[in-house]
């Protein structure tokens, strides 16, 4: 038992070191401009100010709304595409599915910058730049291949017996998909939806290439605009960063096991 206390102490120390940048982000977000360039910097918000957060409320609220909209839109689109595909791959198993799985695996490896360039060419031609739905489509390309593969492995774990039982009761393929397999694969839907949201929420590359002139810009561009200012106001930048981190933190608290499952499933199994 004494040994385990020693481990806890080391563990807390390691975690503190690892999370120091996160702490610093919060600290700076509360530091007033007058103390910002002080050397050495304050280790604690000695004279905390909420100016940065006031500016976020003032200037960044629309960006926040756009990010939420894009995130949710990406989740819906991703699941709508991935769920039927995963059902077919896991349960109907048609011939030639192996090549499709391979294509999905390779699709995840294409660098974002190449996709951004190609999508930009396409979006310009079809007048899709600077639209929210265009950004949703672009962001979904990050999530869809991953979601199909993860969901396929989750749905494969649904026992074939309950699928067969439903068939014997006269359910067609669509009914089996909707009323039997999907509810049983709920955890997979949560995991892939969660990652789709986080990736869309965090996306900067597609936003800056495809939506930089739009009326509705996501939060990542809001932060980037602050950084781009010659007069960089770090307390406002860090306050926005803290706010932008909220969804990740909430999801980690509420859905930690899904997050861990998603990371591992993507790497170790199909």
């Amino acid at each position, binding site marked *: 038992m004494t040994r385990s206390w020693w481990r806890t102490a080391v563990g807390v120390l390691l975690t503190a070191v690892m999370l120091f940048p*996160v702490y610093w982000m919060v600290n700076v977000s509360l530091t007033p401009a007058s103390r910002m360039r002080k050397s*050495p910097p304050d280790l604690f918000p000695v004279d905390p100010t909420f100016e940065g957060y006031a500016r976020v409320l003032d200037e960044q609220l629309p960006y926040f709304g756009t990010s939420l909209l894009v995130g949710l839109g990406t989740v819906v689109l991703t699941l709508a595409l991935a769920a039927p595909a995963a059902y077919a791959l896991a349960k109907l198993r048609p011939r030639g*599915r192996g090549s499709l799985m391979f294509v999905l695996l390779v699709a995840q490896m294409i660098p974002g910058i190449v996709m951004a360039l190609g999508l930009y060419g396409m979006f310009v031609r079809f007048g899709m730049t600077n639209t929210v739905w265009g950004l949703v489509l672009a962001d979904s390309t990050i999530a869809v291949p991953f979601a199909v593969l993860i969901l396929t492995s989750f749905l494969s774990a649904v026992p074939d017996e309950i699928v067969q039982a439903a068939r014997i009761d006269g359910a067609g393929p669509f009914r089996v998909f909707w009323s039997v397999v999907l509810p049983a694969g709920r955890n997979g839907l949560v995991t892939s939806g969660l990652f789709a949201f986080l990736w869309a929420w*965090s996306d900067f590359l597609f936003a800056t290439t495809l939506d930089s002139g739009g009326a509705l810009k996501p939060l990542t561009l809001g932060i980037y605009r602050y950084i781009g200012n010659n007069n960089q106001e770090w307390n406002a930048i860090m306050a926005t960063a803290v706010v932008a981190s909220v969804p990740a933190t909430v999801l*980690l608290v509420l859905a930690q096991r899904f997050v861990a499952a998603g990371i591992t499933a993507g790497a170790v199994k199909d």
Partner: protein
Amino acid sequence: MRKNLVGWAFLSPIVAYLLLFYAYPLVTTVDLSIRDYTVRSFVRGGAPLTGFENYLTVFADPTFRTALLNTVLFTVVSLVFQYGIGLAMAVFFSRHFRLSATLRALFLVPWLLPLIVSASTWAWLLNSEAGVVNAVLRFVGVDGVHWLTSPDWSLVSVTIANIWIGIPFNLVVLYSGLRDIPAEVHEASALDGANSWQSFRHVTFPLLRAVSTVTLLLGLVYTLKVFDIIWIMTRGGPSGSSTTLATWSYELGFGNALPRFGPSAAVGNVLILIALVAGLVYVRAQRKQEAS
């Protein structure tokens, strides 16, 4: 037969999607790279075909060598440290102790944060005058470093930030790999009188080889693609000292008032080729792991 038909009916949306939003953009990028596009012809079409000229332009550009070398350095150094630290943490957390699950969950935070958040936080941590890193260095009596504004340090800085972001991924995957090793294996080696280092070196580590390979290769594919962190922290600068193929491709296509889509696409396609080679090695390794 009917089963196949119904199966592909359910797959038809994803196939249509992949054709429209993967195949078409990729073909567009190839097309961009073999034509001489201007802003005008980009919108209206009709750019003249120039074959491999964009590629030759790019290869002849001195930035190409820098970007390629930086990409290799950034990737290799990131992987070595992410994996090394991630493995050490995974071993540390593989023993249960009070709070271990909570602390392990907290370790995930850097991986979950939007990259622009992590990158801007690191930019401020590494700020020359007001950054806390230099403050600590001065406190212990070392001169501060111009982390982001000196060509000697910019690549180091973005690599440090990227290592920080990658540790959680390595930790989680290696941790799950460690849990899959049966406890009897450790007990057996302990009975044989092995100390914990010997047991790790000769028993755990070899058993973790398959998981390690997959982790490293997936990390390789991820790291080759990294754009956000570098662009936000240094924009590939100063004077190209932290440019990688990904940021250079972006800079050529979107970074200036006058976009050069052809060369940008050519650099992007070179990057794709490198990523695909890494990716195919990964797929093979994963198949082998599943077979065993």
